[in-house]
Each structure stands twice: as C-alpha cells, then as structure tokens.
C-alpha cells in the first residue's frame, strides 16, 4: 500500500503536466473544432467545421497528398533500412566509420536536411548543374521539377534520407537481441541465404519494423516544416493547410484548422495503439 502512494507521488508532477498540456491541448482542439471557443466569444456547438472541410476539394487533395507522401516515404525508407541493416550487421573493414556516417543524420534536424535537399535537387541545384555539365539539359528549367512539384519528390527524398538510419538502427538493435542462432540453424538445415532471410529473419524483424514504420508514418503525416519548405502551394500538405487556416485573418477558418488538427491526431492515435500492441506483444516479451 505504501508503494502505491509512493508511485503516485513520484508520477504526479509528470502526469499533471502531460495531462494538462497534452491531453488538455487535444481537448481544447476538439471543442474548438466543434465551434466552442468561449474565449473568442463563440459558444454554439456544431459539426459545421467538419462538414465544411469534408465538402471541400482543397481538404481532400491535401489529405490524399499527405497520405501519399507518408505512405511512399515510409515504404521506401523501410525497404532501404532492411537492406542497410543486413549489410551493417556484418563485420567488415571500416565498419565503425561507416556506422558513424550511417548515424550522422539521426541528430541532424529535419529542417537542415530539407534545405540540403533543396540545394541538391532544385532546378538550379547541384544535380541540375551536373546534368548541364554532361549536356543533358540546356537550361535550369529543363531539369525535372523535384521541388514544389506535384509528386512531392523532394519531400519524399527528405523523409527517406532522414528515416532510413532511424529504422535501420532499430532493426540493428533487434537483430542483436535475436543473435544469429535461428538463421544458423536454418542454414544448417539446408536453407540458402535468401530462404534464411525470407523465412527466418524477416518474420523475426517484422514486429520491430512495423512499429518503427508506424512512428515514421505518424511523424511524416504531421510534420510542418518540410512540406512548408519543399512542397507546392496546392495541394499543400495537411499540417501546412491547417497552419494556413489557423493564421487566416478570417476567424471562421479557425474551427476548420482545429478540425484538421484533430484528424491528424486521430490518425496518429491509431498508429500509437498499433505501436503499443506490437511492442507489448513481441518486443518486450
């Protein structure tokens, strides 16, 4: 019993802060999206904001665009990360240097990566100049648009750049905990390398990989600064659209901004529940 009180006292400052700020912020966002903002003199409750955004093409295009960006970059990053982890777990000359370089952008803020991508892939960027040097293009505008483009290639490149080491490190840590006994057993029973990977290692890695992918998906779905810097104006990604509506001079756009925030939050909540299931069932056991 004494322990119960001790635990409660130890936890309460952190819980108060998280409940107050985090859940409080989400709650205020929810009632605000329903039009209830007493501090701004609005007290009626309605689903108008949701009705309005769900009826507008602008929202649909933004939602699809954001989903497409998150989905594509998560898939590409996951595949590359599995490949990278398979190589990096081996012992080879220069491994520690390579490992350091592999991790270097884990601590580089997203925004810096976005600017780097901008300077590499814009129509006057490094690769465009290289193409000119090899006489593939005659002027900057001949270079395919990868920044502010409808396919959001620059944004996807940035996310893949940033998330491959993140997923890769989680996979490497997972591989360390399994060891190589299962694969060795499979190999001694006659499985070739591919079969060892496909039927032994990959199933073992899947829960960790899925958990990491969910985190990446949730992050990319709610990130603002990367699409704000590298994305086109229409359709803007959902967080950018939410920010624009929120800072609109027309206060009627606020509930819509909050409704978009709620949609982002609900999507990430689904990801969290999935993550919790995966980690509880497999990783921690």
């Amino acid at each position, binding site marked *: 019993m004494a322990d119960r009180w001790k635990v409660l006292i130890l936890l309460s400052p952190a819980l108060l802060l998280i409940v107050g700020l985090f859940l409080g912020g989400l709650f205020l966002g929810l009632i605000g999206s329903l039009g209830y903002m007493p501090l701004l003199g609005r007290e009626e409750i309605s689903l108008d904001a949701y009705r309005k955004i769900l009826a507008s093409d602008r929202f649909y295009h933004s939602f699809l665009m954001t989903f497409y960006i998150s989905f594509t970059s998560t898939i590409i990053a996951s595949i590359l990360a599995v490949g990278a982890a398979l190589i990096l*777990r081996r*012992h080879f000359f220069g491994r520690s240097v*390579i490992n350091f370089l592999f991790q270097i952008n*884990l601590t580089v803020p997203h925004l810096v990566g976005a600017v*780097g991508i901008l300077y590499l892939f814009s129509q006057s960027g490094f690769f465009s100049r290289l193409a000119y040097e090899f006489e593939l293009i005659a002027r900057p505008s001949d270079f395919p648009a990868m920044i502010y483009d409808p396919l959001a290639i620059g944004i996807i490149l940035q996310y893949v750049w940033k998330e491959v080491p993140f997923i890769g490190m989680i996979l490497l840590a997972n591989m360390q905990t399994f060891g190589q006994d299962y694969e060795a057993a499979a190999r001694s029973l006659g499985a070739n390398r591919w079969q060892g990977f496909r039927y032994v290692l990959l199933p073992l890695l899947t829960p960790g990989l899925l958990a990491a992918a969910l985190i990446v998906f949730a*992050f990319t779905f709610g990130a603002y600064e990367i699409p704000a810097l590298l994305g086109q104006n229409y359709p803007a990604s959902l967080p950018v659209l939410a920010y624009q509506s929120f800072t609109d001079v027309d206060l009627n756009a606020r509930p819509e901004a909050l409704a978009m925030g709620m949609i982002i939050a609900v999507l*990430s909540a689904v990801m969290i529940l999935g993550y919790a299931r995966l980690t509880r069932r497999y990783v921690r056991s």
Partner: protein
Amino acid sequence: MSNGTVTRQEDISHDGLSGPAWFALILLISWLVLPLIPLGIWSISRSWFFPDITPSAYSLRAWTYVFSTTSEVLPALGMTTFIALCATLLSAIIGLPAGRALGLYQFRGKAVIELLILAPTIVPGIAVALGLHVVFLNLGLAGSFSGVLIIHLIPTLPYMVLVMAGVFANYNPEIEAQARSLGAGPIQTFYYVTLPAILPGLLIGSLFTFLVSWSQYILTLLIGGGRVVTLPLLLFNFASAGRNDITGAISMIYILPGVVLLLLGARHLTGRNSATESLRQI
C-alpha cells in the same frame, strides 16, 4: 555438425562484404551525407551561379555576418540554447521521479500510464499546439519565452521519463536503504548514493532532451508567434528568402550539438532501442 554450424555462422557475419554489397553501402552512405555538403560549401562561397559545379569565388562573408553583433543569429543562438537548457532542466526535475516510479515499481494501470507518456512523442505537436494557442494567448504566454519553454516540455518531458525509466529498471534501490540505515538523510542519500548511480543515464537523457528542444520548429512558431526567434525559424526564413550562404552558415551551427552528441554518445546509441527511438523527435 556443430563445426558446420560455426562455419555457417561465420558465413553470415565474418566474411566481409561482397562487391555489390560494398557498392550498395557506399551509395547509401554517400546519399546520407550528401545533403550536408552543399550547405557547408554555400557557407563559404561568394558567388555560385548556375551552371558552376563549384563556387566561382569564396569568402567568409556569411560567417562574418552570422557572428556580427548586428545580425539576429547570435541572439537566436542564445535563445535556442537557453530554451533548450531550461527545458532539459525542468524535464529532468519532473521526469526523474516519474522515471523512477516506472522503472522500479510494478503497479496496476502501468501500461496505460506508459502509453500516456509515450503518446506526446508520436502525436504531431501541431495538433496539440493549435488547441492550446487560445489559452496561451489569454494567459499572456503566447509570444513569450515562458510560453515557448512550456510548450517545448510536451515533447521533451516524455523523452526524459522514458530514458530514466530505462535507467531505473537496472538500478538496485537496496543501497539507498543501506545509506539510510547508516544515518544519511533523504537529500544526502540522493546526492551521494542515487545520483552517482544514475548519472551516466541522466547525462545521456539530458543531451537527447536538449536536442529535442533544440530541433523544435512548429511549436516555437505557433506559440512564439514569430516574437521568440530561435535558430530554426531564422534558418527557414533565410532559406525561403534564397540567402543560401547565410542559410549554409546557420545550418552548420545548427547541426553542431547533434554531431557532438553523436561523437560523445555513439557507444551508447548503438544497439539501444530507447535512445534511438527518441531521435524520431529531432
């Protein structure tokens, strides 16, 4: 048979890399490092127009500007550092007890509490900050240093709690009881017994927490309303204004703490799930 297993095991991990594997690895690593290179070059270039592959003239103009007393960069650097330091300190004070509770005790509802603490690291900050904005405005916190500091605690605190929970999970509280039985007070026990034992973990946790605050963009923009100017805000403005040389110089300063952290903590990072996962916030 057992001999065969050993050789096969070496097959998997000890035989170095094949040609294609080396090629793929070099390609991947170059791709990971590549975006940082033009930033460094831009910071020391004077003119670098299309279609030049390398700058036609170099100068330290951008760096002189960044360190001049008239530019906004130094105050922004100070502001970013100060906010990150305060956020780290507050997170440590609030998060250390919570980490202890989660690391040392089993209790009903622990899974729910862990989920609640994990949630702010996954739910995008923009969803929370949009809702809090009106309240912050009314409390006079919007556009102020304290407002930005408080909002930064949303991503930093959970991180500190999770790291400390990991540290306390490997901690033996018996030695505290021994110190107490020998006559040490609670403060003495904490200072001479608990703190030295958890210090390495606390330092790593603090470094990461610092970096999480250091990297925030949208929370600072929304709550600071452009009046609390941190490095990422300046970086974004210079980048969208096309001042590539100054953008490059600010980027170099902005990535410095992360690279230092990596050099210091690379050992601790490798193979540690919690430490890596925290980096998703950056």
